[in-house]
């Protein structure tokens, strides 16, 4: 095939995915989709293998491939033009029940030639707690509607009985219907555009280009792996739920042109819903692998072939049915993301050629708070506080992490503006801003996370309730690299305030009068004059903080990114009358280095 035709087809495939993503966003009415970009669209070959991974949450690319394959197995001989399938069972392929896959076969001239698949986190899935993340769940049966595969549309005709059954099991069925319709529209656009591509170039040419694309990706990743040093790198993540501590332990081994992610040593599965299934772990490790190792390689089946995963059965990263998994995406999966990011970062740092691609761990803890209740218009609102997607960049070899800089597993993650959230829920923001001292110290500082506080406002029921499935309050998870410190931790504080305590315009947590109760797991009220304070983690730092240019540390203090205490104690910078003292700084840094040798543990 001539390289120009190949290149055009490759770009067209990418544009098909892009346009389908836009469709999904424009049709959806959920802030989690069109503001937070908790979505994914990809194209798959006729056998279900990944052809063109799209943007959005990348840990879905491989899971949706498995979902396609599960549909192919289940509906063998019953897959027709115009069909549409639904799958959301975590033990078949999905990550958790509320991330529904809608999967459409794409036929050309009567023959199955490809699949499109997409997901959104639907408004509700009928789990014990509204919104899908269910800290109260004890097993998969309490996590809402779950299907290992069903046909939703048969040859272009909606199966109304199936549609009605699904909507009968969820809260806010009109919003879930809109979520599903956005995904139907997305798949329709993907299918139409792909068929147009087949019509223009012919089935044989497009098929040839697709095969070449996968072979090219495999070849290029294997070449890259051969350029990287052979070795092994380890990382470890801690999770805590209600006093119980869990570990995700990873040894990543690279030999020749193959990479093995071995999670041996990780904790047994939890009774809480932070577990994840093996497909979720596989997706979790690929989420950082795609952007960090394959930033210039098409994300498809070719990238998957050189990679193998070992995940012990019955562990927190490969739990056995019916263990609960509804919090997986911000639980064990995110820890797998972080662990893989850490080991890949270390492997890159060991390479002369690729060191500048290395990074500390980015935003490692979603705080994932779902609000639910009667809104100011008397309707039902359920939805996430999208600041959980705001993230924080990890420090990179080439510079500081970006403040509120997103996250590695989702290149297009973002948060809604305050007004959007205040229009959706009966709440008012007292503040939302960068969080001082949240970015991990280092020669290159991790990007800051943020902090915010909300109170109930104009609420017909006197307030609203919220689900917290937070981890990351006990243990930092945004690991530093090469001497960099980790990013700071999350916090969730319920401020109990009575009328006399009411603080209409508190500018900080300390300003908010009342009893402050740290919380992290369960369902809580935001009523009366009470407040909810949330802070989210920063990115990991990179390199020795004592090597950070003193002028940059001063800039950080001036900008409010770090405190004077951090500047002095961690970065070794000295001030005199509020101004940098270069001589004293040099002395202090020398003393701090010497102290490292004297205070050996």
């Amino acid at each position, binding site marked *: 095939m001539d390289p120009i035709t190949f290149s055009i087809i490759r770009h067209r495939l990418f544009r098909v995915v892009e346009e389908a993503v836009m469709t999904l966003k424009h049709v959806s009415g959920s802030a989690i989709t069109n503001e937070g970009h908790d979505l994914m669209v990809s194209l798959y070959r006729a056998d279900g293998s990944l052809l063109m991974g799209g943007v959005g949450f990348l840990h879905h690319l491989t899971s949706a491939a498995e979902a396609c394959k599960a549909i192919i197995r289940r509906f063998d001989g019953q897959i027709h033009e115009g069909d549409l399938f639904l799958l959301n069972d975590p033990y078949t392929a999905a990550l958790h029940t509320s991330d529904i896959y809608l999967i459409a076969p794409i036929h050309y001239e009567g023959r199955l030639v490809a699949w499109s698949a997409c997901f959104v986190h639907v408004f509700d899935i009928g789990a014990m707690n509204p919104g899908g993340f269910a800290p109260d769940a004890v097993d998969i049966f309490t996590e809402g509607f779950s299907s290992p595969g069903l046909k939703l549309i048969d040859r272009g005709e909606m199966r109304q009985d199936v549609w009605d059954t699904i909507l009968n099991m969820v809260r806010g069925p009109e919003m879930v219907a809109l979520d599903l319709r956005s995904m139907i529209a997305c798949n329709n656009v993907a299918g139409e555009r792909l068929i147009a591509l087949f019509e223009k170039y012919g089935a044989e040419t497009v098929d040839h280009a697709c095969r070449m694309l996968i072979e090219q990706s495999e070849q290029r990743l294997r070449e890259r792996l051969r350029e990287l*040093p*052979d*070795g*092994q*790198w*380890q990382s*470890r993540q*801690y999770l*805590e739920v209600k006093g119980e*501590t869990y*570990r995700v332990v990873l040894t990543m081994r690279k*030999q020749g042109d193959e990479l093995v992610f071995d999670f041996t040593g990780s904790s047994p599965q939890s009774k809480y819903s932070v577990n994840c299934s093996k497909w979720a772990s596989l997706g979790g490790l690929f989420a950082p692998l795609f952007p960090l190792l394959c930033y210039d390689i098409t994300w498809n089946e070719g990238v998957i072939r050189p990679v193998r995963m070992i995940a012990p059965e019955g562990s927190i990263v490969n739990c056995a049915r019916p263990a609960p998994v509804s919090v997986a995406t911000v639980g064990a999966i995110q820890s797998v993301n972080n662990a893989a990011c850490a080991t890949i970062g*270390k492997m890159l*740092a*060991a*390479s*002369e050629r690729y*060191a500048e691609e290395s990074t500390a761990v980015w935003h490692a803890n979603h705080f994932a708070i779902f609000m639910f209740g009667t809104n100011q218009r008397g309707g039902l609102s359920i939805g996430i506080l999208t600041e959980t997607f705001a993230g924080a960049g990890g420090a990179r*070899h080439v510079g500081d992490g970006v403040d509120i800089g997103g996250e590695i597993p989702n290149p297009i993650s973002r948060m809604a503006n305050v007004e959007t959230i205040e229009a959706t829920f009966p709440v008012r923001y007292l503040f939302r801003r960068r969080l*001082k*001292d*949240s970015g991990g110290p280092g020669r290159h500082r991790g990007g800051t996370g943020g902090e915010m506080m909300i109170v109930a406002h104009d609420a017909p029921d006197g307030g609203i309730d919220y689900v917290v499935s937070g981890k990351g*309050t*006990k*243990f*930092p*998870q945004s*690991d*530093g*690299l*090469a*001497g*960099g410190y*980790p990013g*700071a*931790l*999350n*916090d969730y*504080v319920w401020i109990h305030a009575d009328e006399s305590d009411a603080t209409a315009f508190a500018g900080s947590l300390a300003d908010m009068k009342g009893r402050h109760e*740290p919380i*992290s797991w369960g369902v809580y009220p935001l009523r009366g004059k009470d407040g909810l304070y949330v*802070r989210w983690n*920063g990115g990991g730092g*990179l*390199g*020795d*903080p*004592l090597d950070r240019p003193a002028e940059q540390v001063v800039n950080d203090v001036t900008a409010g990114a*770090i*405190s004077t205490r*951090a500047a002095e*104690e*961690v970065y070794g910078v000295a001030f005199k009358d509020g101004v940098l003292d270069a001589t004293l700084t040099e002395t202090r840094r020398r003393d701090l*280095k*010497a*102290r*490292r*040798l004297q205070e*050996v*543990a």
Partner: protein
Amino acid sequence: MARRRFSDTLVLADGKICCGACERPLAAADRSWKEQAALTVVPVASLPGAGLGTDSRIVLRRFACSGCGSLLETEVALPEDPFLEDRIVVAG
């Protein structure tokens, strides 16, 4: 002396893992360099920016060069957990 990267802060030279700043040898390439580093341990709860709920047991292990004091690596750990160990395969 043949020299190549082990990490951002360490190099491999003549079959040994050395500090990248002062080139002090820390360990043979197939051994744990962390055992030979200057280790200081600080509770995460005592660091600037620590959260309200930080577990009192969790520490930041800081591995510095035992010669020049340059910080080589950190790791977050509970006291009972072993050091994270990285290895580079040296040909031949």
